[in-house]
């Protein structure tokens, strides 16, 4: 079953790329009693080690979230910003945001703009202030805010911002808490700056030098009305990513995973996509190379304030990772 409380806390807590302290501390609290050693590197990656005698297995998920960084505050107190992580400006209009200190605001756009295309330069954040000084007393240039939509859960699905990739982090935490005997030398890594191009994953893989790497991410389900054709659908189980823009799976790991899903009755789907860079792109090329596969949870509306994933798919992903660790 899914620990709704923990998942809700994990998706709601502040931690945009480069400012991951809060989510990192939350994860440390959850896992510290279950691992042998915890390390935080220069880029802020959280590396948890559970020693074993076998191959070095690194399992990672990125813990940062989409954010918006303040670049300017005008005379009337409106905030101008730019995005940290990929998203569509048009998805942001009317959305609420929250700063680390709790200050909330709403994103809107220059309505009388003569150009049709909405770009970040035409968006602003209104925190309900009456002048520059008022805004400056609450928000500084360089501050980063996050999407503030609430976490919603029903019997079968979860709707929330930041499922990408706090869902991956949640699965890692659950795996760590339920560790049985494994012959792997296990490294659990919660990476930083995944949203801006797998930066944390690069230094983490460099210091760990894993033999094998599993990356847990979410991937775009394109099963909504009039969407482009794709295999990936919600409720169809965990996804094994054969290829994306930054990597091709290692066939040995892929075959192991395919054996495991059959043996353990795990619902799964395969994906070949042109999706963005995942941490796997950095990890599989680290040093002498790392056998790498991405395992994903299908998710709708990725990089918006309302991402949707299903409980069943999450559980299938958890089952697959657990069976991989226990397979030896």
């Amino acid at each position: 079953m899914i620990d709704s409380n923990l998942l809700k806390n994990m998706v709601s807590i502040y931690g945009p790329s480069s400012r991951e302290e809060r989510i990192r501390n939350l994860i440390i609290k959850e896992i510290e009693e279950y691992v042998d050693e915890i390390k935080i590197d220069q880029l802020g990656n959280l590396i948890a080690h559970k020693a074993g005698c076998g191959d070095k297995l690194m399992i990672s998920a990125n813990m940062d979230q989409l954010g918006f960084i303040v670049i300017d505050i005008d005379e009337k107190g409106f905030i101008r910003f730019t995005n940290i992580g990929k998203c569509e400006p048009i998805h942001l209009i009317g959305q609420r945001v929250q700063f680390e200190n709790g200050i909330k605001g709403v994103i809107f756009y220059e309505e009388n703009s003569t150009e049709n295309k909405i770009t970040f330069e035409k968006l602003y954040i209104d925190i309900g202030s009456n002048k520059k000084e008022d805004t400056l007393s609450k928000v500084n240039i360089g501050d980063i805010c996050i999407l503030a939509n609430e976490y919603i859960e029903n019997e079968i699905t979860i709707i929330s911002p930041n499922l990408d990739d706090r869902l991956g982090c949640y699965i890692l935490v659950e795996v760590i808490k339920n560790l049985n005997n494994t012959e792997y030398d296990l490294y659990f890594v919660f990476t930083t700056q995944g949203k801006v191009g797998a930066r944390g994953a690069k230094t983490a893989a460099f210091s760990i030098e894993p033999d094998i790497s599993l990356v847990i991410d979410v991937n775009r389900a394109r099963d909504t009305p009039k969407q482009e054709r794709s295999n990936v659908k919600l409720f169809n189980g965990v996804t094994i990513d054969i290829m994306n823009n930054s990597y091709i799976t290692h066939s040995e790991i892929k075959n192991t995973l395919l054996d495991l899903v059959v043996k353990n009755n795990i619902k799964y789907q395969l994906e070949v996509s042109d999706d963005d860079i995942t941490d796997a792109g950095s990890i599989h090329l680290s040093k002498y190379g790392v056998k790498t596969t991405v395992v994903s949870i299908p998710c709708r509306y990725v990089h918006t304030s309302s991402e949707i994933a299903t409980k069943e798919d999450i559980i299938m992903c958890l089952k697959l990772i657990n069976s991989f660790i226990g397979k030896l």
Partner: protein
Amino acid sequence: MLLEKLTLANGVSGNEKEVRNLIYKEIIDFADYIKIDKIGNIIAYKKGKKKTDKKILFIAHMDEVGLIVTDIDENGFLKFSTVGGVDKRVLVSKTVKIGENKIPGVIGSKPIHLQKKSERNEAFELEDLYIDIGVDSRTDAEIKVNIGDYVAFDTKYEEFGNGCIKAKALDDRVGCSILIDLIKDENIEYDFYVAFSVMEEIGLVGAGPVAFNVKPDICVIVEGTLCYEMPNLDSHLMPTRLGYGPAISLIDRHTLYDFELREKTVSLAKQHNIPYQYRKTSSGGNDAGEIQVSGEGAKVLALSVPTRNIHSSSSIIKKDDYFNTLSLIKYLIPSICKEDK
């Protein structure tokens, strides 16, 4: 200023030799250790009076944007490609210097009288432009230049106006010059590394090997950065402003700058009454992109001198911004090294 010599030297990406030799000569007597690595980066180390367990690296890139000769036609005109992000619209009628012998040339194009109406509304494509070196035939041209020769803008260094400097290649000779001043200062308390990198303008090529070699904990990138302040422009659309002090980077295409380093820099600027500004755009990028993720990673900060008409033949900086950047860096070193002690 030394900046005059530095900007008059030519160092289009991949061909930084002249700049490298100049910098090497300037700093050899002041560095405690200096080496040129396999792709041409200069890496220098300067001992301070006190030891520190923090490895700080300051880096500026030696290369500049420019052109490269790709073909010579029957009339002796040179065809070329750009090296780095050069706006083709700034090229027409510029004077240039070609190759090691600095052969003078002029970038030619069709005169306005002969242009069709539609042509007048659009910028020339590179294939419509050529470099004229004043010869009559390919054979004549081949005596002076070769395919593969680098082409740099030919711009006089001038100090003008209210403390402004006009020159080519201010991105990033201004950073090189500041770091040379830094290494010549015998009063810096702590040890630090300085690097002058190659090929930044064509994709941060030199910085990776520098970082791999030095393995810094903290790296400060010293740059010339874009500056654009047309009248009636909303303040958030001006990336930096001339004369408003060193620009502290928040974000760019490759990097999210370390929050604590940034905050420390701002508080030092306030404490010592040094003007500063934030760089208000996520466009562009610099060596930080490679250095932060090299090896086990490094914390990065970028301080830039606002540079108008960047990547063109005539860039402009303000001397105040130069000296304010230098003094902020000097305050930064002890402030970084002292902590946790």
